[in-house]
């Protein structure tokens, strides 16, 4: 069974790919742009033709974009170690560029604590989730600076891992700041329009773009000293009585369809590992096959396919996998009254 979190990550990755397509940065650096002009004419009834042509090469523009990817403040417990903030670095120029990364856990912003012992990791396996080395290696400046091709693999997910002070209390926030600088000499921080003769791809000229070849993004940790907790609220509605009523509430007569809803709420600070929700079908009812949904998305009854749902031994099972708090899920399934 594929974990729901993985599905979400794939979705996020797909979105990232789509978004980078939307950000299309223009004609690749070095592309020759050719103009061909033709003149046709007649002299004394005899046709003639002449041709003219010009060509220039597209200059390289150096631009960069950096975005904090977490949906909101990352909830952490006091004293927690190696807590992850996720960023996306994108080459928004039109060539190939290497980028240096700089972590600052004491940025000039209003927060309550400085995250400690920060390190930068690269999403080496490209799954958007921090898996630790060697899959996601430690970033070492000058050794594995991300090299991104604006016309190819143009983005890199980056993780900042820091520890949370044990003295931090619920509601307090701490900010980590990530800076990425284009590594072409003289690019980062120079005014837009600065020419870098011969420093573009393949020795063409480059120019500093509107981002000034540097980007900064911040991510925020928020402390919650309440330990992580899982809550489930179950409710039921008769959505069809098999006798003409098709809008809840219908009468719970034999043959009527009951829809059960399980609201799963993960709260507090931390991560829940291998969360599996199971719900046996009540006596005197029969499960309506292929009716399991998770957040409105249908899951199959089969236990051997990739999705999180399964129906077997008269029990509905949804495997939510490993989950970072806080988050909520809604599971539904239908039964009929015997």
């Amino acid at each position, binding site marked *: 069974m594929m974990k729901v979190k993985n599905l979400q990550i794939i979705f996020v990755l797909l979105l990232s790919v789509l978004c980078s397509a939307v950000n299309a940065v223009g*004609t690749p650096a070095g592309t020759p*742009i050719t103009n061909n002009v033709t003149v046709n004419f*007649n002299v004394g009834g005899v046709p003639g033709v*002449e041709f003219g042509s*010009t060509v*220039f090469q597209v200059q390289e523009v150096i631009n960069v974009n950096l975005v904090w990817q977490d949906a909101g403040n990352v909830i952490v417990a006091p004293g927690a170690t190696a807590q992850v903030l996720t960023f996306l670095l994108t080459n928004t120029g039109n060539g190939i560029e290497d980028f240096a990364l700089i972590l600052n856990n004491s940025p000039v912003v209003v927060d309550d604590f400085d995250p400690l012992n920060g390190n930068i990791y690269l999403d080496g396996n490209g799954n958007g989730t921090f898996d630790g080395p060697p899959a996601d290696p430690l970033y070492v400046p000058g050794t594995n600076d991300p090299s991104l091709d604006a016309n190819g693999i143009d983005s890199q997910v980056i993780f900042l891992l820091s520890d949370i002070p044990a003295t931090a209390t619920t509601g307090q926030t701490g900010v980590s700041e990530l800076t990425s600088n284009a590594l072409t000499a003289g690019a980062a921080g120079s005014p837009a329009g600065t020419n870098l003769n011969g420093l573009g791809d393949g020795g063409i000229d480059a120019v500093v773009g509107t981002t000034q070849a540097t980007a900064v993004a911040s991510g925020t940790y928020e402390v919650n000293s309440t330990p992580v907790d899982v809550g489930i609220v179950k409710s039921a509605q008769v959505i069809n009585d098999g006798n003409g009523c098709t809008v809840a509430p219908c009468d719970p007569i034999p043959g009527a369809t009951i829809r059960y809803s399980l609201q799963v709420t993960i709260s507090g600070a931390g991560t829940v590992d291998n969360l599996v929700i199971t719900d046996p079908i009540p006596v005197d009812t029969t499960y309506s096959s292929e009716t399991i949904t998770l957040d409105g998305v249908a899951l199959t009854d089969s236990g051997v396919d990739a999705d999180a749902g399964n129906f077997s031994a008269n029990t509905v099972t949804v495997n939510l996998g490993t989950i970072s708090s806080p988050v909520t899920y809604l599971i539904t399934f239908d039964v009929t009254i015997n």
Partner: protein
Amino acid sequence: MSKHFLTITKALCVFLLASVFTMGNANTSNAIELTSIVELEVVTLDEQGNEVVKRVPAEKVTPGSEVIYTTRFKYNGSESAENVVISNPIPEHTVYKQGSASGQDTEILFSVDEGKTFQTSSQLQVTESDGSKRVAVAKDYTDIRWTYRGQLQPGDEGSVEFRVVLQ
């Protein structure tokens, strides 16, 4: 000199003259000298500090830049030339800038089907994938055609111009 010889000479002369005449007509190569240039506009400050727009050769062109194409022509023939038509596909990776095509004494038409058909900009239509039609916009244009009104006389010069934005 016999009459017979004279007749032959005359005939030969007529033949030669005719040949020269025909050659003159057929020899249209290099009759029109075409010069195509590509430029950018840059804003500079003059000595009084006023902004001056200046054209420079397009050497440093980045995506989003507006590029000016100028085609100059000079007619070097000895007789008038007619049906003079300048054709220019919009260069790949660029989009035509609406309203930028110009050329004195020319009728300017555009194509959205790579030069198969030409229309004025207001008449040009594009057929969508669902079969519906809409008025073409600049980014649909694939070709520009300038048709010179009247004839080019020996020594006549002129130019046509258009602008594109590099994608």
